[in-house]
């Protein structure tokens, strides 16, 4: 995967750093951060700001036994060598979904059980919580999601293939971090189907007749 060229909104990075993003958004942000050095650097800066602000607060005491319980557990807990996680990530096969998506959709692209949405478009739907939904979309070359705006915040990241819209070309690792004002019509342009993950906190606002027709097939 070449380096992403479309990045998280700095306001989204701040909210992720604070732990304040709804789960669906935090998941899409996390899978971008995994592949994007510049956004990780921004995240570290935001975390530094957060840690600093928290340092200015007093603490909230823990319950009476907490300290001795923790002290006791140190005895049994070895200090580990370098984390195996980085190697695990590097050795992830091309058929594996990013780990944060796996609990919702399964581990492998080849085993995804897509639902039909419109000609050339299939989807999977998850509801991590009441605040936002998490979708996977698969769009075949030459097909587009009908033109829409967002009632709220949309965060998407391309996992495979590429699409184009008014904002440019989006390939693997690229995110579109969109406010309600943006109207777009993502058109799949890669030979391989374009697959992307999308977090949405409000219904889409369709701009032509094809949208509502397609949306009839989406569960509410």
């Amino acid at each position, binding site marked *: 995967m070449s380096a992403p060229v479309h990045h998280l909104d700095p306001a989204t990075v701040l909210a992720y750093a604070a732990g304040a993003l709804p789960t669906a958004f935090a998941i899409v942000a996390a899978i971008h951060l995994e592949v994007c050095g510049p956004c990780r650097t921004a995240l570290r800066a935001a975390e530094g700001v957060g840690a600093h602000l928290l340092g200015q607060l007093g603490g909230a005491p823990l319950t009476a036994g907490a300290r001795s319980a923790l002290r006791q557990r*140190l005895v049994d807990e070895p200090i580990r060598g370098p984390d195996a996680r980085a190697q695990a990530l590097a050795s992830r096969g091309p058929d594996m979904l990013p780990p944060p998506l796996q609990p919702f959709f399964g581990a492998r692209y080849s085993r995804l059980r897509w639902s039909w949405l419109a000609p050339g478009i299939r989807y999977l739907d998850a509801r991590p919580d009441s605040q936002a939904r998490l979708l996977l979309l698969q769009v075949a070359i030459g097909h587009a999601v009908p033109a829409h705006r967002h009632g709220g915040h949309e965060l998407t990241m391309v996992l495979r293939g590429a699409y184009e819209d008014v904002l440019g070309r989006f390939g693997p690792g690229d995110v579109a971090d969109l406010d309600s004002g943006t109207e777009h019509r993502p058109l799949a342009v890669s030979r391989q189907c374009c697959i992307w993950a999308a977090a949405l906190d409000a219904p889409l606002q369709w701009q032509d007749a094809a949208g509502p027709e397609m949306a009839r097939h989406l569960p509410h």
Partner: protein
Amino acid sequence: MEPPDWSALMGRVARTRDADSFMRIYDHFAPRLHRYLLGLGVPGARAEDLVQDAMLHAWRGARQFDPRRATLSTWLFRIARNLHIDSVRRAATAAYGDEFANGGEDGTAVDLAQAPSPEAYADHVGLSRAIDALPALQARLVRMSFLEARSHGEIASELHMPLGSVKSSLRRAFARLQNGLTDAAA
């Protein structure tokens, strides 16, 4: 009184597994992490469990702490925040009834390793100065984000501001803080 050199103390923990040094770190940071998690809206007992988990992760992962890349407070904050995100996510995936729901090591997990690229990070004096220099509204929005973990939408409705203005103010604030960080590190 001079504050302890937390990085040096953590280095000693990594080298010698000195539990007493670690407990000094615990005594200072655990209540602060607790306050942070309560501010995020995590229920009391759960917040305390997350603090204990975060401190255990820090103990086990002591060798991954690199004082050239982050302060100890930032590192501990990140561990607690990641554990919080994972715990919320696990609750969300419980409905999906798979093995990830049962506390396996999944997800973003606790990113003990630090970013491979060099990071600009400054001493707290530089950061304090940058935060103090923010316009009042920007400073307030940043504080609400971190100390009350308010979503952009919540901030917008509480302050009667358009959502777009909240986001653009936060963007400007973050850009100023990052510039302040770079200046201070130079």
